[in-house]
């Protein structure tokens, strides 16, 4: 509860709303005790007095009645009616929703069809029809507004109840022999109360507005009784001569509804866990760079990742996802980057073209050089012109990485035309050729398909075709086969290998599977806890892994037809990168770890084979 209040007031707007609403509510409650003129005391001599007149702070209306007094009494009435309508709508709607959701079947069907019918009416129209029947009057307006809002509550609550009604604890209660009434009261209702409260807090503003509207039309409160809406309605005829009689009640409605809305939003947000984690932030066009110094250029590699540091900054926590990673890629070479989930391999790959989601991602150090040109902190336009043209990506899940609403042909044509201003027809021809290159049968027809009409393997072929669209020098493949089944996986790998040979592509291949690395890669780098722990030619590493982690990772690959050794899992979990242990990050899971491993930084040593271990399995 105190956490909830703290979250609520951290949101300044909600706090503002709470204060304004609080003041208004207190004033409304105190109205009978304040030294005010009676709200209905007329005085023909004092008609239309301006605000700040003697004895009438806000002036008087067309009958000489004190506006301040009428405003406060009207506010009292409007608030009461709005809250009452919300309460009725909430309770009745929730009751209907719970019944429909809990009992399901025909009860549910019939009720919800009825609710749908009610929702088929434009909003205020139904309220008008109800008032037409009941006759004008504040009570009738209240009923009309409440009835109109019942469907909204019934629908929401039904949805929530359906979710609860199939949970284990309900089954348990039923098996324990509890009756429906008891289950509903003790198990279901407590779980939906927060939902009802949120729904009420977000709709109460509307209800105050709607009852004021009906009163404004002359269908709500009748003279001499006046809520804010009918005050406005009465003042309308004198709008031009005495605008203050309209402005006073109008501004009050605005203040009430606005503060209620702000507070309602605040309550909803404070209860929404996604906002707390900042997960609703949208990633920017390029990853944020906040780099203290740039390491000096060296070497002549095609792609040179040099002491790269990428972090995720969430609140006060810093996750060091990539911690001084250095990798080199030569033309036509395939480098495997391998590690468990969360080891930082994908973040390394995405950092190259500034594609790490930011916020929360920040590149805090190092350099990424493409033929000597540093890309970290490069202007957006330069980065954009290189993306897809020199360095292209293939992502893991082709269903979520292709745009679901564009035809694959259009996505391919777009990829071509972003960098090469050819005609649509020419691009179309090239797109068909690309689909042919990645072995999609009948490409001329398939080009018009939507992603959801293709199989997983076909989709990934489209993903590869898109990466090849501009004949890039480098392809970064981020677990391109993980989401596919094994036979399709083999085909995709064969295709990638063939394309590499034919086009002289350099590939950075990210995977968690040593089997895949063995098939495709010239060299391999092993990543753990955001750092490279071992690197070297693939065969050499596979034959004689130097780092204990590499050895155990290789032992995880099942041997086909062998079956003579135990398939070894690595005990424990990879470290959380916001609290890395001192020394070797693998030490807590390593059976060879000694005290020295837990002290100070372990360096990456060696020449063609490098290892970050004090007690390597073999000398590098």
């Amino acid at each position, binding site marked *: 509860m105190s956490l909830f209040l703290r979250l609520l007031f951290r949101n300044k707007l909600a706090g503002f709303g709470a204060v304004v609403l609080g003041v208004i509510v207190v004033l409304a409650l105190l109205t009978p005790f304040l030294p005010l003129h009676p709200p209905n005391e007329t005085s023909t001599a004092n008609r239309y007095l301006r605000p700040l007149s003697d004895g009438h702070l806000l002036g008087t209306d067309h009958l000489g009645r004190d506006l301040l007094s009428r405003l406060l009494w009207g506010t009292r009435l409007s608030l009461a009616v709005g809250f009452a309508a919300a309460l009725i709508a909430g309770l009745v709607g929730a009751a209907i929703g719970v019944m429909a959701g809990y009992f399901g079947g025909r009860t549910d069907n019939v009720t919800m069809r009825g609710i749908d019918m009610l929702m088929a009416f434009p*909003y205020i*129209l139904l309220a*008008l029809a109800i008032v037409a029947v009941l006759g*004008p009057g504040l009570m009738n307006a209240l009923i009309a507004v409440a009835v109109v809002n019942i469907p909204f509550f019934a629908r929401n609550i039904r949805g929530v109840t359906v979710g609860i009604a199939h949970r284990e604890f309900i089954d348990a209660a039923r098996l324990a022999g509890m009756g429906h009434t008891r289950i509903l009261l003790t198990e279901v209702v407590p779980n939906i109360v927060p939902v009802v409260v949120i729904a009420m807090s977000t709709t109460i503003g509307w209800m105050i507005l709607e009852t004021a509207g009906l009163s404004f039309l*002359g269908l709500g409160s009748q003279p001499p009784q006046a809520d804010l809406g009918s005050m406005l309605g009465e003042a309308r005829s004198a709008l031009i001569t005495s605008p203050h009689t309209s402005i006073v009640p109008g501004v009050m409605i605005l203040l009430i509804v606005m503060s209620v809305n702000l507070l309602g939003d605040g309550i909803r947000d404070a209860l929404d866990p996604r906002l707390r984690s900042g997960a609703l932030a949208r990633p920017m066009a390029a990853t944020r760079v906040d780099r203290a110094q740039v390491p000096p250029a060296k070497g002549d590699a095609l792609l040179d990742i040099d002491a790269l540091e990428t972090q995720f900054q969430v609140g006060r926590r810093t996750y060091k996802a990539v911690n001084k990673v250095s990798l080199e890629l030569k033309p036509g070479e395939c480098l495997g980057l391998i590690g468990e989930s969360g080891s930082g391999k994908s973040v390394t790959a995405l950092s190259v073209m500034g594609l790490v989601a930011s916020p929360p991602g920040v590149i805090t150090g190092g350099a990424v050089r493409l033929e000597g040109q540093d890309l970290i902190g490069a202007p957006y336009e330069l980065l954009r012109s290189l993306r897809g043209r020199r360095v292209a990506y293939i992502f893991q899940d082709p269903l979520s990485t292709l745009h679901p*609403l*564009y035809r694959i042909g259009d996505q391919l044509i*777009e990829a071509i035309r972003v960098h090469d201003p050819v005609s649509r027809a020419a691009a179309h021809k090239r797109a068909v050729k690309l689909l042919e290159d990645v072995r999609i049968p009948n490409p001329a027809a398939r080009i018009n398909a939507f992603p959801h009409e293709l199989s997983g393997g076909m989709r990934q072929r489209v993903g590869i075709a898109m990466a090849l669209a501009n004949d890039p020098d480098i392809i970064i493949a981020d677990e391109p086969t993980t989401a596919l089944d094994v036979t399709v996986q083999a085909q995709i790998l064969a295709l990638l290998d063939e394309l590499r040979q034919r086009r002289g592509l350099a590939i950075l291949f990210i995977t968690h599977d040593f089997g895949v690395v063995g098939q495709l890669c010239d060299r391999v780098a092993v990543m753990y806890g955001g750092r490279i722990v071992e690197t070297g030619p693939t065969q050499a590493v596979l034959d004689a892994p130097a780092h204990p982690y590499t050895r155990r990772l290789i032992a995880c690959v099942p041997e086909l037809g062998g079956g003579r050794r135990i398939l070894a899992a690595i005990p424990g979990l990879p470290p959380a990168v916001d609290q890395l242990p001192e020394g070797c990050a693998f030490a807590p899971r390593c059976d060879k770890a000694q005290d020295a491993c837990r002290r100070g930084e372990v360096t990456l040593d060696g020449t063609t084979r490098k290892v970050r271990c004090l007690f390597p399995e073999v000398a590098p």
Partner: protein
Amino acid sequence: MGGYILKRLLSAIPVLLGITIIVFLIMAMIPGDPATAILGSYATPENVARLNRFLGLDEPLWRQYFTWLGNMLQGDFGRSFRLNRPVLDEILDRFSATLILAGTAFVLCAVLGIIAGTISAARQYGFADKAITSVVIIGISVPSFFLGMMMILLFAVKLRWFPVSGMYSIWGGGDLPDLLRHLTMPALALSVVATGVVARLSRGAMLEVLRQDFIRTARAKGVHERRVIWGHALRAAMVSIIPVLGIQAGFVLSGAVYIEMVFQWPGVGRMLVDAILTRDILLVQGGVVFIAACYVGFNIVVDVAQSLLDPRIRT
């Protein structure tokens, strides 16, 4: 595609029937006896009984319903006793005025709302986002009738840009510029709340979409950020924005009541309020059914638009 439209049209039939049943039942709940209401409380019991028989009110409820429904299907919505003319004629006379007002407001709320929401999402937490969000909060909290009155004070009385009111008939006299002069303020006032709602939901939908993987793919292809936002992301966000537009259409159509009162606009909304205050029940009944039916029709258009946009629901 044709099949989808047909299916959607057929599914509207039970909804329309449901609407007529609800309206009929609500109207049947009127306390007291319509004949007494028409003839006044001094009518003799014989006269009341005669009128009841004449109006068919001595029949069982279900028969009354089917008679009423059958008549409506033949275009006979009954006669307004106050205006002494057929209800449908009165509605049709006034509906074009409401349609122009609500239609303009709807286009405004859709275009402005989506643009504002998209900019807001693309510049999340930036200055533009904060400015738009603040305006939106005020926009969705202001009563449209109060806003209309304030606009009259400022733009008509003080600045004299637009006429206060005086839209007596849509087709009588006046040319297009004249219509636009009269239309600007009411349409703006009517669209403000809906614009706020659309902007807010568009912002949310865009933020949701911008985190999706296919946006990263578009960026990785080198697509320009402008096109990523206004093309890829907005196209995907439209799938959740369009249903909201459908709801807002109903809101604008019925919210026109207030605006028609404030600006003396000769539309159906004002007719309804007058009819309610004078207890002209057949006119209310006819008007409500007519507007609700239009709304159902519009929702079919929305669903078809949705299916054109999203190939996954076109099956």
